[in-house]
């Protein structure tokens, strides 16, 4: 930490990089977002997300259990917005169906226990996590920046993710629509 501010950037950083929180990265307050370990205004993060998705060669969206399953009435509208986002940036969707430590088919799904398998198998250069519980999102994103050069984005329902390269907090349907709007305009 003495060397200056820790940046959460594209890897591969290390076999298992330090937790961003331990390196001093903090979560944003309402109205702000987080980009590469720094607190930034939400509007600029939304623009940055749209640009990264636009420039990506092979963007992939990874919807997690919070929006894959109908456990709440909010799941389906958010899933619809995520699908629209995928169409707007021509991204593939590879779901994280749950957090079980089981064998997976990397061409069709992603697991938080070994997310790199899916990232490397599909040569994903930008991935978006949405609807993944924070504790699993955190460890999966850290593994990805540890072992791959994939750019990671987290659209978090509650508190943003300090392990993602860009992350929005309170990211419900409206904020996803903002990203879609910019993608369609540019």
């Amino acid at each position, binding site marked *: 930490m003495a060397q200056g501010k820790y940046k959460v950037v594209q890897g591969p950083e290390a076999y298992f990089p330090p937790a961003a929180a331990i390196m001093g990265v903090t979560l944003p307050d309402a109205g702000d977002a987080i980009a590469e370990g720094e607190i930034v205004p939400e509007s600029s993060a939304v623009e940055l997300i749209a640009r990264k998705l636009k420039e990506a060669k092979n963007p992939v969206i990874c919807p997690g259990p919070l929006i*894959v*399953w109908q456990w709440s009435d909010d799941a389906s509208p958010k899933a619809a917005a995520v699908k629209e986002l995928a169409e707007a940036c021509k991204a593939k*969707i590879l779901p994280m*169906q749950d957090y*079980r*430590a089981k064998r997976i*088919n990397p061409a*069709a799904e992603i697991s938080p226990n070994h997310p790199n398998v899916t990232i490397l198998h599909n040569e994903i250069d930008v991935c978006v996590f949405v609807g993944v519980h924070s504790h699993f999102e955190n460890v999966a994103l850290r593994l990805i920046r540890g072992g791959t050069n994939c750019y990671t984005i987290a659209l978090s329902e509650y508190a943003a993710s300090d392990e993602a390269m860009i992350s929005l907090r309170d990211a419900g349907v409206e904020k996803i629509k903002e990203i879609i709007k910019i993608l369609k305009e540019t």
Partner: protein
Amino acid sequence: MSKKIITPVKEFEDLLTPDYKELIADGPYNSGPKTIDDLGSFREIIEPHPHCAGCGVSLGIRLGMASLPSPEDTIIIGTPGCSYFALTQSALNYSCTAFGNQNSVASGLKRMLKIRYPEKHKDVLVMVGDGGVADIGLDYTLHSWFRGENIATVMLDNEVYGNTGGQESGMTVEGAILNMAPTGKKFPKIPVFEIAKTSGCVYTAKVTVASPKKLGEAIRRAILIAREVGPTYVQVYSPCPTNLKFPPSQTLAIAKEGEKSYYKYEEYMTDEAKKYLSRINES
């Protein structure tokens, strides 16, 4: 914890992988309750196991998982040990505690679930190794029984600390020589089964993986009785070929052999438990 968690949103339905599609259509959640007799004809809650060949513990878990009265309303509490590897990949609510704390965590969860869902039974099932119950978690286990918590406890007894390479546990048989007990164990198995009866358990059963129907029935009864009557305990003999050094093909034979002595089938229940069981079996 309801069928909603196994119902996909329509937007992503077609993106699910075949194993999940099968689990939804043909698993124990939506196609009616399953028993041991149905094994092989439905998509199970657990995946092919990652344990050693011939593992008794993984067989015990597989049989137990096929005997849950309502899997969508069940949470399993585990603790470190070989059982973790199968439980962590099950399509069930599962939580692993710090070693030995399982019955305390289960007590808290059960109480919370009773408050949150007063109109529904949410089953809390503890499934851990012999070291977890008889050694490191013995005090918490006993206290949960003394307190009369509505939880079911299952010990998967492989008579060794399997996961850490073969130390003796309180459930290791006297004289047994293990990787890390080279001069043999110096005292007999801890009588957890007997202690359970005098410590508040209203139902106890001693079974082996060589008698799947008895095992399945014991776990089903333990879960049902724990809902309303009190704490229950099932002790499952699940021998470990790797540490007890017998060929993996012999697991069932060894378990069957056990039924001739210490692991002779035994079932005990209080009158109240008996009445409860016959009442729900009738309805």
